[in-house]
């Protein structure tokens, strides 16, 4: 575990709390899926929480975020309220996207959260554009783009990295390398399996990080953002991580064995950070108990919010297909 000298009690509490609430939320989602409250594809983030939490901790409100279909964790870490996120998973009108997007398409304007993109690689050019606008308008925001290592093979990855590097745009690329794209192990999809090297070939400042270590991710993100805000151009972080669950709810996991999963579970980012913080005296047992209880309370409330939320009226089906103005 990366020891950070300036890690305060409050900050440690916050990091653990964030990861815990995402974990509890996701576990509840799995249950709600079997109850058919949540439908469609559902991609759990369990095991990967440290990436989102560590990254988002380092952001300011001006920064924008582009995520994938595995986006609920990202959105919660970014500070999108849990009730609307859960309502979105239900498809209710109280959802972040009024239910129209569902689990794969969380969007949130106040958080500058630009989806929830379910085309693998499709979010990368958006992030380049968000950053381009920022640069042209002389804003201070950075566009943060999260994506899996599977996206690296897509042409849109290549075009986006080149544009970002060529134009020295304020983009933070965060590759969540969980070693699999659905059932495809990285060795079977990439001729160069060291993704951070691949990124470096665009002359982008690129680093590999332990994605199971929230403190390491936060430190890397902070460093990267400093570099970017200083005008140094884009940075690429490859976060080595693992998903503990199936790719989505329709996956028999024929492509990996249980031992591999168990080995990675030993590095569970929540357990590891908790153990370390307790042993370092940064947190007390009572903190853990409280956080854990708070997470459950928050998730319960989110479920209640989602349950109570109405459905979008049928009459509004065609609303928002064309906009009548650009939202201010």
């Amino acid at each position, binding site marked *: 575990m990366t020891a950070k000298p300036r890690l305060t009690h409050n900050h440690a509490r916050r990091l653990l709390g964030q990861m815990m609430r995402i974990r509890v939320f996701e576990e509840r989602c799995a249950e709600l899926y079997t109850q058919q409250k949540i*439908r*469609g*594809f559902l991609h759990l983030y369990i095991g990967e929480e440290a990436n989102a939490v560590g990254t988002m901790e380092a952001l300011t409100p001006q920064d924008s975020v582009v995520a994938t279909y595995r986006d609920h964790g990202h959105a919660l870490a970014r500070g999108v309220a849990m009730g609307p996120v859960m309502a979105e998973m*239900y*498809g*209710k009108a109280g959802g972040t996207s009024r*239910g*129209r*997007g*569902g689990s*794969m*398409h969380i969007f949130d304007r106040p958080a500058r959260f630009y989806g929830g*993109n*379910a*085309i*693998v*690689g*499709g979010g990368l050019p958006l992030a380049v554009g968000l950053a381009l606008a920022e640069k042209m308008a002389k804003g201070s925001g950075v566009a943060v783009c999260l994506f899996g290592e*599977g*996206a690296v*093979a*897509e*042409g*849109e990855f290549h075009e986006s990295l080149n544009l970002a590097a060529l134009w020295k745009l304020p983009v933070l690329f965060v590759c969540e390398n969980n070693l699999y*794209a*659905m*059932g*495809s192990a990285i060795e*079977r*999809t*990439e001729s160069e399996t060291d993704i951070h090297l691949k990124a470096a070939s665009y002359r982008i400042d690129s680093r590999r990080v332990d994605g199971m270590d929230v403190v390491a991710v936060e430190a890397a993100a902070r460093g990267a953002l400093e570099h970017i805000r200083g005008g140094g151009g884009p940075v690429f972080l490859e976060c080595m991580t693992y998903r503990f669950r199936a790719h989505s709810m*329709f*996956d*028999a996991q*024929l*492509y990996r064995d249980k031992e591999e999963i168990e080995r990675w579970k030993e590095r569970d980012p929540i357990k590891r950070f908790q153990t370390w913080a307790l042993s370092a005296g940064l947190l007390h047992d009572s903190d853990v108990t409280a956080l854990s209880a708070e997470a459950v309370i928050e998730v319960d409330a989110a479920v209640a919010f989602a349950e109570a939320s109405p*459905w*979008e009226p*049928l009459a509004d*089906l*065609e609303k928002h*297909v064309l906009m009548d103005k650009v939202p201010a």
Partner: protein
Amino acid sequence: MSAARRKTTYREAVRDAIREAMLRDPRVFLMGEDVGRYGGCYAVSKGLLQEFGEERIRDTPLSESGFVGAGIGAALNGMRPIVEVMSVNFSLLALDQIVNNAATIPHMSGGQFAVPLVIRMATGSGRQLAAQHSHSLEGWYAHIPGLKVLAPATLEDARGMLWSALEDPNPVLIFEHVQLYNMEGELDAAAGAVPISGAAIRRPGRDLSIVTYGGSLSKCLAAATALAGEGIEAEVIDLRSLRPLDDATIMASVARTRRVLIVDEGWRSGGISAEISARIVEQAFYELDAPPARLCGVEVPIPYPKHLEDASVPQAESIRAAARALVRPT
């Protein structure tokens, strides 16, 4: 049922078709994302990797343009690839290869090269997968000369169209509606290839013709059954092929029924239904008692919640209502 028939699903029928093709012709191989270890996004190819090995059940990286283009190149060089694109929305990433290469090379080369390639993709809504996974673009693809476009709606066609498509010297796109994969039924144990040209009348009727295909067929048949209870006998035509269209079967039916409802899950404006309507008025205007009616997808990126998703595409009930309104205008 006779001993020669056996229970199966649409998914298994597609799998059996792939297996048969692989066994029949060593030039055939299946290539796409997660067709191997994972067994296919919709479990279509489950077990085939074990049977045929990873050369011929070839997992690809996420690179739609790359592997679809590679399929074209392999077809140019003697192979008979079956390329699977998980979902029609993702195929947009490969559109340059499909439209600018596969569809043009035979003509552009003056007939020197053929592209005997099959591309399979899942299409359609109904699984609450929202606006980047649920569209029905098969009618859109049917605009492109140089391509053939198929939409198997029955077990027989799921089982039988693939081999015929592989024998065709042209690039053939096969669209499998996501809601059909679990469809169960019985199939002749000896079922094999079926011709890929020509529509089929799935239910005869005298009062109106319902022209449809793919995922909407079973809804139209359900509507027709319900309509029969009201004394309206609908003839249901399954197009089977969207390019080329079988004008003769459509016109013959319309000449008998004098009324036609076209049902299509794709977006209405500029969809395949418009083409069918236009052809009908061009070829059978004076035989019509009423203008051809269209019941299509609402023009909206498919929303996630079930009530909105259901309302976005034709359903048995709305088909029934549209048919009734056509036959018995108020």
